[in-house]
């Protein structure tokens, strides 16, 4: 049925995954990347898949595209497109479906664009290939489509090469290209992660009504719950290769049932609450590797509601949630957990006494000289041009204060950090640290004490540590360099103390960076920054590359240490929701200038600078009850090489009043308390602005740490004050016992007593390994052996292996025999299987 062009049956799902299992085959054996995945996408529906990196989101997308690479394969279940199983289709049919009836948009727009072809050619090609229409017709349709994805000036874009347009525009072109063939299903894998916030907001706005306008079904993959809420109807939460919760967006966001989903929500900042009313709670531990998953619930080792003997007994399945049609969850205890009790408790708002002013930035200016070798420049004689990275920065920071510097890429945040660090010197103005001018003091002229008192936490956890040196030696180097530790022994001791400080085990000192997860690396980065007697620490987007569940832990740690040590923290970020949680003051930058600055509360409530207003509205919010204004900025960031005249924001400002904005630099307006706005708008226009984010029944003053319920009724979040009261009266939460039982496969223990007996038995039966008929009693779950996935388990069962003890008894010869029968290409560490099987057999008592 459902031939191309046939009318679409409203009740046939466009895509259906039934118990889909996908494995990769590597050196370590079969890696079950996705297990028993179920998903139904109805026509016109948008389904979101959310989860931490490595949980298998992309694998699902690639399986749907049938692009598994040579070491990946679907090993179980069904994958139906328009009612037909894709696994039975011929290569020819798949080719026809891919790219025309199912299209995919990747995170990196340039991955889908050919850098050496005009966009016109690339777009027309799609139409000509799939529909065989003429070139003019194709051009007309392409321009229409570019217009539909709201690209300004489509004709010009058509005649550009991909590198001539900005990242946001590229992604729109890719989406246009995907939509051109009029697909039934559009897959988007983190399509906005590489974009700036305000640009992202525009693309999300577009994605949001693709289903409505084009009738296309969508699968939207993201790690950002807020984006899913804005774009999707349904949501699947994935954890460690499984869907753990599925339902409509409303169901999952308001009444989440799975502890992992709840953990995700508890770890992200929400507007309308701050760190006192609703402290962020990270999920402890890490995502297990696919071949190291625990028995029973995969989330067990990280779950606060884990019960031994219940959660770690057998594999769990998705179960429909009682009383909620369409919602399902993979948790045995979802009905028993009392969420009101488990709510994160509000903490007392600690009052921090800020000390004296530590840092003063006065009219700081930094221009980079660039040599323009173009013929035009040579003719006019203007071969040197200036990139105005910082135009006129003016702000202060006190001891123990956290000042957030907010802005999009290219606004000059990092340049400022470089001047602070002495990697560049200022072109004008002053930077004064504790009364000493440092803006013109390069790092090699600074004293070790000064260098040590000004340190930095870097953005990319994968680059912040040198892969060639051990963690301990890298921290020790810092200590020696700053003169904090005199000799080796003292350095060693201090390294261990610093590891304690950032809550890492001491034996990490001997590790190489690649043995650490992203969050752990970032902790080492923090330890390094606080190694000296840091007076000011600059953190450049320290958590933006981490998974949400880890972000909370790292920011928490960073601010804790900073407050304890009374260090001044300059927190550079583009994410206003994080900033609201940790900053005392906020500086909003655009094109090298400060647009607005003030106390955090003042920044987040009117009056706003028009740019701040747009930034605030661009932040995706994972809360169904919150209404927010949508302000989508036109165009892209201008180049700092030739910034617009007058107000820097005038090219994109939705509130622009006219010629005055284009001609005159706006005045700096004071609103008290150090709240300053750089704008021509009249005071009464500014003060009468409406809040961007509106709480449900929002009458009370916003912003303040009022312990008001922040969110939906009866949901796990919110009602912080009540929760705090409840918690005070409540006995301590149940401590789990026997935690190790959750991870049996990891034990390296061997059962020595069994070994001789087993060996003898094997010897008595020379005809190969012991095989059994299907046992009446329950067979062991062979998948617990790392390297055995669902596929290999089936094969082993077919060969008559049902119990760990059988495998534990294999001799070298048996292994050879089994290897032949498995006909598995590649090297698998079978000895390892034996060890594991022995340990498992001992545990299960057979």
């Amino acid at each position, binding site marked *: 049925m459902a031939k191309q062009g046939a009318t679409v049956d409203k009740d046939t799902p466009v895509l259906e995954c039934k118990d889909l299992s996908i494995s990769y085959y*590597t050196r370590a054996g079969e890696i079950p990347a996705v297990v028993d995945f179920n998903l139904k996408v109805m026509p016109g529906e948008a389904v979101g898949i959310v989860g931490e990196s490595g949980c298998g989101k992309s694998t699902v997308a690639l399986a749907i595209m049938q692009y598994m690479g040579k070491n990946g394969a679907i090993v179980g279940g069904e994958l139906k497109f328009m009612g037909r199983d894709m696994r039975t289709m011929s290569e020819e049919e798949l080719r026809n479906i891919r790219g025309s009836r199912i299209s995919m948009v990747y995170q990196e727009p340039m991955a889908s664009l050919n850098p050496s072809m005009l966009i016109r050619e690339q777009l027309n090609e799609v139409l000509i290939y799939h529909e065989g229409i003429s070139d003019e017709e194709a051009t007309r349709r392409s321009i229409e489509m570019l217009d539909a994805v709201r690209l300004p000036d489509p004709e010009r874009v058509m005649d550009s090469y991909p590198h001539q347009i900005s990242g946001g525009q590229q992604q729109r072109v890719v989406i246009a290209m995907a939509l051109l063939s009029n697909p039934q299903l559009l897959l988007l894998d983190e399509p906005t992660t590489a974009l700036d916030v305000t640009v992202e907001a525009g693309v999300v706005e577009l994605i949001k009504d693709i289903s409505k306008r084009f009738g296309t079904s969508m699968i939207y993959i993201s790690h950002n719950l807020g984006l899913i809420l804005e774009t999707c109807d349904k949501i699947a939460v994935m954890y460690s290769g499984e869907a753990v919760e599925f339902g409509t967006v409303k169901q999952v966001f308001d009444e989440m049932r799975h502890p992992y989903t709840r953990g995700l929500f508890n770890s992200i900042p929400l507007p309308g609450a701050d760190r006192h009313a609703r402290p962020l709670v990270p999920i402890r531990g890490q995502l297990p590797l696919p071949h190291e998953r625990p028995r029973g619930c995969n989330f067990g080792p990280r779950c606060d509601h884990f019960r031994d003997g219940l959660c770690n007994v057998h594999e769990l399945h998705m179960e429909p949630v009682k009383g909620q049609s369409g919602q399902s969850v993979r948790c045995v205890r979802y009905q028993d957990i009392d969420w009101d009790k488990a709510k994160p408790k509000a903490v007392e708002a600690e009052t921090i006494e800020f000390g004296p002013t530590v840092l003063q930035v006065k009219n700081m200016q930094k221009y980079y000289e660039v040599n323009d070798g173009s013929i035009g420049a040579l003719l006019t004689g203007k071969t040197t041009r200036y990139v105005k990275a910082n135009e006129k920065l003016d702000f202060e920071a006190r001891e123990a204060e956290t000042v957030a510097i907010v802005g999009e890429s290219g606004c000059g945040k990092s340049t400022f950090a470089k001047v602070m660090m002495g990697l560049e010197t200022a072109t004008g103005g002053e930077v004064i640290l504790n009364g000493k001018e440092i803006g013109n003091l390069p790092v090699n002229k600074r004293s070790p004490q000064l260098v040590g008192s000004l*340190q*930095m936490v870097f953005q990319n956890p994968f*680059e912040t*540590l*040198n892969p060639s040196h051990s963690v301990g030696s890298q921290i020790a180097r810092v200590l020696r*360099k700053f003169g904090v530790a005199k000799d080796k022994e003292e350095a060693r001791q201090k390294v261990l103390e610093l590891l304690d400080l950032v*809550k890492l085990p001491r034996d990490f000192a001997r*590790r190489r960076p690649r043995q650490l997860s992203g969050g752990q690396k970032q902790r080492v980065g923090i330890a390094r920054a606080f190694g000296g007697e840091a007076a000011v620490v600059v953190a450049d987007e320290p958590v933006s590359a981490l998974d949400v569940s880890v972000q909370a832990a790292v*920011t928490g740690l960073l601010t804790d240490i900073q407050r304890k040590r009374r260090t001044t923290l300059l927190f550079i970020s583009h994410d206003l929701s994080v900033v609201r949680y940790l900053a005392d003051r906020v500086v909003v930058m655009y094109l090298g200038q400060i647009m607005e600055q003030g106390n955090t509360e003042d920044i987040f409530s009117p009056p706003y600078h028009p740019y701040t207003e747009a930034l605030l509205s661009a932040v995706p919010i994972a809360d169904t009850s919150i209404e927010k204004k949508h302000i989508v900025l036109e165009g892209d960031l201008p180049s700092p090489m030739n910034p617009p005249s007058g107000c820097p924001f005038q090219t994109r400002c939705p509130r622009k009043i006219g010629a005055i904005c284009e001609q005159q630099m706006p005045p700096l307006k004071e609103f008290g308390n150090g709240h300053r706005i750089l704008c021509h708008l009249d005071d009464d226009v500014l003060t009468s602005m409406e809040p961007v984010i509106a709480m449900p029944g929002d009458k009370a003053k916003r912003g303040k740490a009022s312990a008001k319920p922040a969110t939906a009724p009866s949901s796990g979040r919110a009602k912080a004050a009540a929760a705090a009261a409840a918690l005070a009266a409540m006995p301590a939460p149940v401590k789990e016992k026997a935690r190790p039982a959750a991870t049996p496969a990891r034990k390296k223990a061997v059962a020595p007593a069994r070994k001789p007996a087993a060996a003898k038995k094997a010897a008595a039966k020379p005809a190969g390994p012991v095989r059994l008929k299907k046992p009446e009693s329950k067979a062991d779950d062979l998948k617990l052996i790392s390297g055995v996935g669902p596929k290999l388990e089936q094969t082993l069962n077919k060969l008559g292996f049902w119990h760990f003890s059988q495998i534990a008894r294999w001799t070298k010869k048996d292994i050879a025999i089994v290897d032949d029968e498995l006909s598995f290409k590649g090297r698998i560490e079978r000895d390892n299987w034996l060890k594991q099987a022995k340990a498992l057999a001992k545990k299960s008592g057979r």
Partner: protein
Amino acid sequence: MSDVTAETAAPAPPTGLKRLWKSIGLLRESYVGMFGAVLVCFWVFIAVFVDLLPLQDPLAQTRGAQMLPMLTADAKDVMHWMGTDDRGRDMLARLMYGARVVLFWSVLATVVAYSIGMIMGVTAGYRGGWWDEIISFIGNVFLAFPQIVLLLVIITAFGPSSQLGIWMTNELGLDKTLVSGSLIIIAITFSTAPQVARIVRGIVLDLKTRDYIAAAEVRGESPLYIMLVELLPNARGPLIVDACLRLGYVIITIALLGFLSLGLPPPDPDWGKMISDGRQWGYNGLNMMLWPALAISSLVLGLNLLADGLREISLRD
């Protein structure tokens, strides 16, 4: 915010030796690399233990036993497995001792050329600006010469038969082999170091944008420290592969110099010289040319395959 318990501990890191053993284990997965490694190990083994092998004296000339074909015994009933050369010296012995000579000088030349190339490359890449302009310019000048011309110019200008060479041997009393050997090293350094520098510069340009370099700069490390401790160790992966290939070229170059009689002085066995010795006998010298030619190609092939294998496994995971 709430406390975070330490994230679960991963298995302890393998120590240096174990890591080495593991990498060798990985090489087993590339048949090509394994084959190359076996060839290379064979020659290295020979070069190191040649004294202990039951071979004849490679320099001893047997009268009346000149140019014996392979697998023949001479009048004294001494078996010459690979025959003898035009002076009645045992080919097998010469070939095996030649391995030591070739490997010694080629490894030494490669190490010197590589060290200089790395210093040039890392300086050009990391310091940039004038440093880069000057170093790249010098490198390009040498690269612009056809390599063989460069070698010939250097060796004839400064070789043992030049004024300088004669002065060094006669006045300073230096060993002839030493003089020729150092000259070979210098010549190879001039032709190879710029190429190495170019590769290193490319890698460093990429590496220097990493945050850990910024971190080092921010804590006030000297450029020298950053180049040697922070940058170079991270370039080792691609450089090891390249060094294998490069060693192969150097072996060919040394053989070529020997063939042109510009290499090491006689009577030390040198594979290139051995081939040219055979060449003057035309067809009759075939046996004399065959064995050294096979030796050179097997060693160079081994190095190339080893490099391929290393690259293959480094690309996987």
